[in-house]
């Protein structure tokens, strides 16, 4: 899907995700869309973004997109490489990491994520890869961004399995569970951006990408989606953003 202005919905999503990262932050990066967005941000407005990968590299500065979570380019360009127990225990768990960047196979209105099974756990319709680092990233990073394509198959009324917790069943649940980070403050999709309601924590559409109607967003969501009364239009990708992104992904 390409817009009349020559960019795709995926490019809009990646650029929007990159814009959400600030220079100097430490960012725990998953492979795929999150890694593309974080590496794009580092080449644009956030040259001092600290990229942390769960395989152990801290401060990775890859000159191309890593193809796996433990790509050699991450180790050879990092400030330091630590063991896997250390990355989780010393760096993630105490809340040293500003932003955790996650994907999702299923997402619900409170930003809880399923990456484990579709269907029943004991007799799954589809067995997905599972948790990886996500449950503790979702719990312990100061804030979490989720990057995922929006469809009623992914944005569901009820998850088949809770792999990683967003806001649980609503306001106050993170505190009750002892989760110390602030949770999923942004969900960035190919249609726009959702943010938690300040009172109920329900994900609400606060930004729509150019050309996306509120009706289209509602149709791509499996729960009755709320559109913020002050919803804005996402600024289009600039020529510079597109040029650098395409350089990175070519």
């Amino acid at each position, binding site marked *: 899907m390409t817009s009349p202005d020559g960019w795709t919905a995926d490019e809009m999503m990646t650029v929007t995700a990159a814009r959400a990262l600030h220079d100097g932050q430490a960012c725990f990066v998953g*492979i*795929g869309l999150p890694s593309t967005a974080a590496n794009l941000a580092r080449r644009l407005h956030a040259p001092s973004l600290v990229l942390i990968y*769960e*395989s*152990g*590299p801290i401060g990775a500065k890859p000159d191309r997109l890593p*193809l*796996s*979570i*433990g*790509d*050699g380019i*991450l*180790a*050879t360009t990092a400030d*330091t*490489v630590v*063991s*896997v*127990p250390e990355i*989780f*225990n010393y760096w*993630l*768990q105490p809340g040293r990491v500003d932003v955790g960047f996650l994907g999702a196979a299923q997402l619900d209105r409170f930003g809880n994520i399923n990456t*484990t099974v579709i269907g029943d*756990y004991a*007799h*799954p*319709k*589809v*067995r997905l*890869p*599972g*948790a*990886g*680092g*996500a*449950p*503790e990233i979702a*719990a*312990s990073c100061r804030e979490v961004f989720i990057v995922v394509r929006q469809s009623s198959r992914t944005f569901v009324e009820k998850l088949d*399995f*809770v*792999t*990683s*917790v967003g806001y*649980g069943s609503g306001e106050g*649940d993170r505190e009750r*569970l*002892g*989760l*110390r980070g602030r949770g999923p403050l942004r969900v960035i999709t190919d249609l726009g951006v959702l943010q938690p309601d300040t009172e109920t924590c329900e994900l609400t559409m606060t930004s729509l990408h150019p050309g996306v109607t509120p009706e289209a967003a509602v149709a791509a969501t499996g729960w009755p989606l709320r559109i913020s009364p002050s919803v804005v239009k996402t600024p289009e990708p600039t020529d510079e953003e597109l040029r650098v992104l395409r350089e990175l992904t070519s």
Partner: protein
Amino acid sequence: MAELMTLADAIADYVHDDDTLAMEGFTHLIPVAAGHEIIRQGRRNLALVRMTPDIIYDQLIGAGCARKLVFSWGGNPGVGSLHRFRDAVESAWPAPLEIEEHSHAGMANRYVAGASGLPFAVLRGYMGTDLAAQTPSIKTVTCPFTGEVLTAVPALNPDVTIIHAQRADHAGNVQMWGIVGVQKEAVLAARRVVVTVEEIVDVLDARPGAVLLPSWVINAVAEVPRGAHPSYAQDYYDRDNEYYQAWDSISRDRESFTRWVDEHVLTPSSR
């Protein structure tokens, strides 16, 4: 003290049917050649332990070596599903596969407890997820100092751990560098240890950031050049990303997988 042996002898001596077997390596230094030797020797009923099962365990599961998998992320990194793993879980082919599922943080801490001689590890993890309801080895523990309720996971102490490293000396001291994952912990947690290496050298000169595993915590060292292929060995060869891509279609159906194992693992010329 480690004994220098052939890979076939090391597997024959140290990996037995019904063992709990850990093969670690986080994307880097995955002991793939050792996995193939286990398939060739027809080990059965293994409880396989690994944070990221990857294609090495997809092959062992599809070849019928496993009864159980203890893991935290079972995918083909950067590609998609592990089809043999999925077929075993979804359709019990070639045999039912019991699973014990954790998060990375939980698995890493289980190895740390095993290496430390402790019965369990404490972490902040799993709270609010559905994992604890499915995995009996996730429980809570109350801090005796603060009263805080935390997560407890039991130590992992594999019967045997196998890793791949860059090099060893003739005395069997092993040196590895780059992304070192959880291998030191997996080795120190195990009752028996087999290490394959890219090369045996006269002197292990010091390298910044390298992990050294002394000969006296290892049973067998086997020289197996390219023993981590299609994963990579930093400063020796790069990851074979095309192989990972190709695995998706090879492993998608039972027949093409079986043919692949016959041709690439079981046939003597493939060794």
